[in-house]
């Protein structure tokens, strides 16, 4: 699995998988009983737990062909319901780095943004065609390009969109306070050298 998102997010590349259906809520993405945890670590295995159990191995998250996918293609109002951040955490820990769909629930969208996961949209008919392409050819490599606003593969290319605010945050890396702070490490080092207590007042 690639490392979790950090810094500027300009593109997400990899294979894709499809979860079809309108109004897929966060209770389905991660059932409530999995919220009692000290950390988010175990959530990757528990993503869509009840749906997967019901489908007994044939859920897209269980199918061998889709293992290792990083782009999730969904339909409308994905992520509605409870505001739990566990939902995007579970998807991220399974390996998802971007979601493309017709529309997203607002809180889910914001929770994804805070993790550096872009949720981008395309028209319903186009999403259906993309989903069909993914299902027919699970091994196809896709690239979600945030600079060009396109989801492309060697065979095709689709326009996708994202509000300017979140788009700018993802592109610039400002969704992530930590990476902003880390980007000034040389200034920090210089400042530490000037503070006499940092080395126990040993340098005059």
């Amino acid at each position, binding site marked *: 699995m690639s490392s979790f998102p950090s810094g500027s997010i300009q593109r997400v590349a990899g294979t894709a998988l499809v979860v079809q259906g309108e109004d897929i809520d966060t209770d389905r993405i991660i059932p409530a009983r999995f919220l009692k945890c*000290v950390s988010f670590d175990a959530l990757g295995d528990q993503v869509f737990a009840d749906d997967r159990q019901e489908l007994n191995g044939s859920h897209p998250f269980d199918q061998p062909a889709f293992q290792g996918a990083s782009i999730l293609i969904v339909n409308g109002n994905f992520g509605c319901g409870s505001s739990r951040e566990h939902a995007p955490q579970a998807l991220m820990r399974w390996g998802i780095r971007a979601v493309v769909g017709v529309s997203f629930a607002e809180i889910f969208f914001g929770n994804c943004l805070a993790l550096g996961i872009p949720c981008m949209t395309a028209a319903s008919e186009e999403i259906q065609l993309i989903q069909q392409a993914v299902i027919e050819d699970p091994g196809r490599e896709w690239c979600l390009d945030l600079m060009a606003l396109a989801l492309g593969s060697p065979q095709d290319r689709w326009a996708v969109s994202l509000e300017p605010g979140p788009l700018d945050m993802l592109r610039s890396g400002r969704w992530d306070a930590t990476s902003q702070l880390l980007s000034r490490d040389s200034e920090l080092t210089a*400042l530490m050298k000037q503070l*006499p207590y940092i080395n126990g007042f040993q340098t005059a």
Partner: protein
Amino acid sequence: MFPVPAAAPLSSGTLYDKVWELHRVDDLPGGSTQLLVGLHLIHEVTSPQAFAALRDKGLTVRCPERTVATVDHIVPTTTQTRPFNDPLAEEMLSTLERNCLEYGIQLNAIGSGRQGIVHVIAPELGLTQPGMTVACGDSHTSTHGAFGAIAFGIGTSQVRDVLASQSLAMSKLKVRRIRVDGHLAKGVSAKDLILHVIRTLGVKGGVGFAYEFAGTAIEALSMEERMTLCNMAIEGGARCGYVNPDQITFDYLRGRPHAPSGEFWDRAVQWWSSLASDADAVVDDEVVFDAGQIVPTVTWGITPGQGLGIDERIPSLDVLDPADRPIAEEAYRYMDLQPGTAIAGVPVDVCFIGSCTNGRLSDLRAAAAVARGRHIADGIKAFVVPGSEQVARAAEAEGLDRVFRAAGFEWREPGCSMCLAMNPDRLEGRQISASSSNRNFKGRQGSASGRTLLMSPAMVAAAAVHGQVTDVRGLSLHPTS
């Protein structure tokens, strides 16, 4: 003379301005500032998710030598043998142990002689020093401002940021000088002073401000009293509070394990002295108090701002500011105390002496001076939880444990204990406590309907002896020394 490097303190300004400027890495887009953190303190409650987040991002700890850990919130105070009976408490501590081991962070473990409440141990180890920025995932980090440090509580995501980058994004506060002149009367403590300030300025009064405590009454306070004062700045809404460093500060620090020594000590004192607010420094606001007017103060309600002088009565709605009435009505109901009732004489069930506000040696001495030669009233449960292993051993060396035990108090091992009741120490049902801690929020002490009266440690001891809120000034004292 110590040659002052490029980051020289401003020629004129408040300590807050100078320390801020010395630690400013850069201005960030959006208006906040990247501030270098000189000392980062962690404990078992707010650090595990931060370490997890660090790993998620594939990051490591930037300066492990500038982070120091202790365990305090979840430790039992009766027996501290491992594993703890509470599996979740055990898991939290073992997670902290693993994290400290993995990243090379000093952990002041149980039995090390250095364990205790984070805001008690960092000062006593000499970790907290003037001119530092101190951050900890704990709101009472304001305590460390007693040394002339800029110290503030942070959230878990900021703990992650400090671990990763030794800095955080922050917006500058305004400075309000709380000038307290005159002398505190006998029997009146720093706790009474800060409860009085909060009562006067309100629990939201300090939002957006750092409180600079100044004036002759503040200058006369010991370091432990200054810590009590700054500890509760946050209860008045001020994210940090501080006292300018002076000879009392330096005398406290000299010889402590992490304090500089020899020639480095002299350089340190010179630098520390240069950071104190200048006489002509401009502050954003100033409020003046007369120390001589302050009496032993006790909270009657459900916020630390609902305080009363010991000779006052619970206020009726009509004397209160309209904005304070809804919370007062809620407090009458929750506390089951009616307007017009004198606060002196309110019966209590449990008496708790401890916490990062009042769990230091001088606090225990003040309480012991009341307890010595007396006994707690029938039906009262009273216990003393030293703030740290050092405090506990020093108190035992003076025989304070025997004084308390002889008076019917339990003598416990160090930790946060019933300040927030994350360990087994808690109120039951509607019990009402006299407590030397800092928060009287509903349910704070472990029972959803439990009630808390905040007061000084000497006043808690007096309440234990009489089974009711009692003016300590009316009791003869038997100090140790």
